[in-house]
């Protein structure tokens, strides 16, 4: 499998505070990589470095063979190939669902209105919210908003998807619908990097599990292996608290 994302010796400082202390890892095409770890471990920062929402302090991030830390890179083009889903959904509240999905298609990919709407509706169908096209985000439940956010990212036809704790802000009964959508996406062969606390999802859907703590990758491997037989003491401590 060709490599989708390769991170080499990534360091990130916030002022004096080093939150990523030399990260190396790869995501293969079609792979689902779940990143777990305690809060403050740097897992969200790592994810946000992959589309440069956070500026890496040093190190390289290579996406589909292109070094995106190169200052000459067309960042908007790179980002349009990488879908991202946020913990707080971040739908555009002043636009209806359909316009949320077509805005970037039209502005970035220069699709015409009819084409953008066709793609948007297809993706709404995919997340089971075709009937909500004309609704505004404020009138949707958290779970529906997050599924719209996933559909919005998918409407850009991304090569890979980043998920930043996509279910952490949801009421427990709404988590399942979002995870179902993500599971289907994984089954279709989407490359996914998922920062999550959902161990069940990581176990069932993940191809690789990465455990981070204190700005380093402590342990990585097959999710079932890592979850049931963690090698490192810190992994054991963390899992004993969350499982």
């Amino acid at each position, binding site marked *: 499998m060709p490599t989708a994302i390769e991170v080499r010796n990534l360091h990130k400082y916030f002022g004096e505070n080093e939150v990523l202390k030399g990260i190396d890892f790869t995501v293969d095409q079609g792979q689902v990589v779940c990143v777990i770890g305690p809060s403050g471990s740097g897992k969200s920062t790592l994810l946000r470095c992959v589309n440069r929402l956070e500026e890496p302090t040093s190190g390289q991030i290579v996406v589909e063979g292109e070094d995106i830390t190169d200052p000459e890179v067309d960042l908007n083009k790179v980002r349009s190939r990488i879908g*991202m889903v946020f913990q707080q959904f971040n739908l555009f509240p002043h636009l209806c669902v359909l316009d949320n999905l077509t805005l*970037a298609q039209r*502005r*970035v990919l220069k699709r015409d209105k009819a084409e953008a709407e066709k793609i948007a509706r297809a993706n709404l169908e995919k997340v089971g919210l075709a009937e909500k096209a004309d609704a505004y985000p*404020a009138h949707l439940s958290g779970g529906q908003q997050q599924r719209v956010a996933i559909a919005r990212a998918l409407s850009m036809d991304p090569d890979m998807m980043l998920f930043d704790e996509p279910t952490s802000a949801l009421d427990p009964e709404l988590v399942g619908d979002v995870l179902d959508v993500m599971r289907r996406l994984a089954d279709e062969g989407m490359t996914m990097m998922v920062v999550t606390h959902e161990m069940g999802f990581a176990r069932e859907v993940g191809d690789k599990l990465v455990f981070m703590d204190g700005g380093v990758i402590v342990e990585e491997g097959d999710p079932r292996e890592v979850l049931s037989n963690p090698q490192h003491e810190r992994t054991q401590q963390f899992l004993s608290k969350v499982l």
Partner: protein
Amino acid sequence: MKRSTKRRLRDGALYALFLGAVATLILVADWSKIRHNFFDGGVLKAIWPELVTEAAKNTVVYTAEAFIGGLALAFVLALMKLSPLKPYRWAATAYIEFFRGLPALIVIILFALGIPLAFNGKALPGGAIGAAVIALIAVSGAYMAETLRAGIQAVPRGQTEAAHSLGMSGTWTMLSVVLPQAVRIVIPPLTNEIVLLLKDTSLISVAGVGIGQAELTNFASDNVVINSSPTPLIAAAVCYLIITLPLTQLVAYLERRSQKAR
């Protein structure tokens, strides 16, 4: 004594005090003099047409000009203040602090009288009125710049991040994601700014205005002298209130609505 009895007695005393004050006012006031001086029908009839077609109209026109000009200026200043480039931020901050710190009156005198004096009669465009309106633009722009900046910054960071993550450029993010939301946030404070501006147009009279250029306050004070009656002031006051009251009510409504939306 029971607590409830005490409370009733206290409230009763307060009501009695209020009614007593109103009654005293009614009895003491010289109503015929008040009616004769402040509500003189003859004077009112004489100034009425011009009051509306000229003075009130001019007030509204000056307010609109100053507001539109000020808003455009404020927009540029707000973007400068949010610029990543330091000199732009410094310049915007210096401008805003300078003009917010001065009385509008002194700026109007400076623009309308000071500049022609300093530059051998070279005046700002539009004569004294033009200079006075430009002065109001300069001042209101400084105030509204801060309002706009606060509105832009009140749009959550996640909105910009979401737009960027979709590959949208900084300009498109600003235009189609941040500004539409910021505008909703700043409509109530900007409406307030219109009310303040409307009242500040009364300062224009100091610039010395020509025939047909007087706004409400100027017109009223001229007519006080002409008719030796304070009635024109009351007429002007009513005109101001007819414009400002609906606006302040609108602000209250918009603020209630935005609170509900949250």
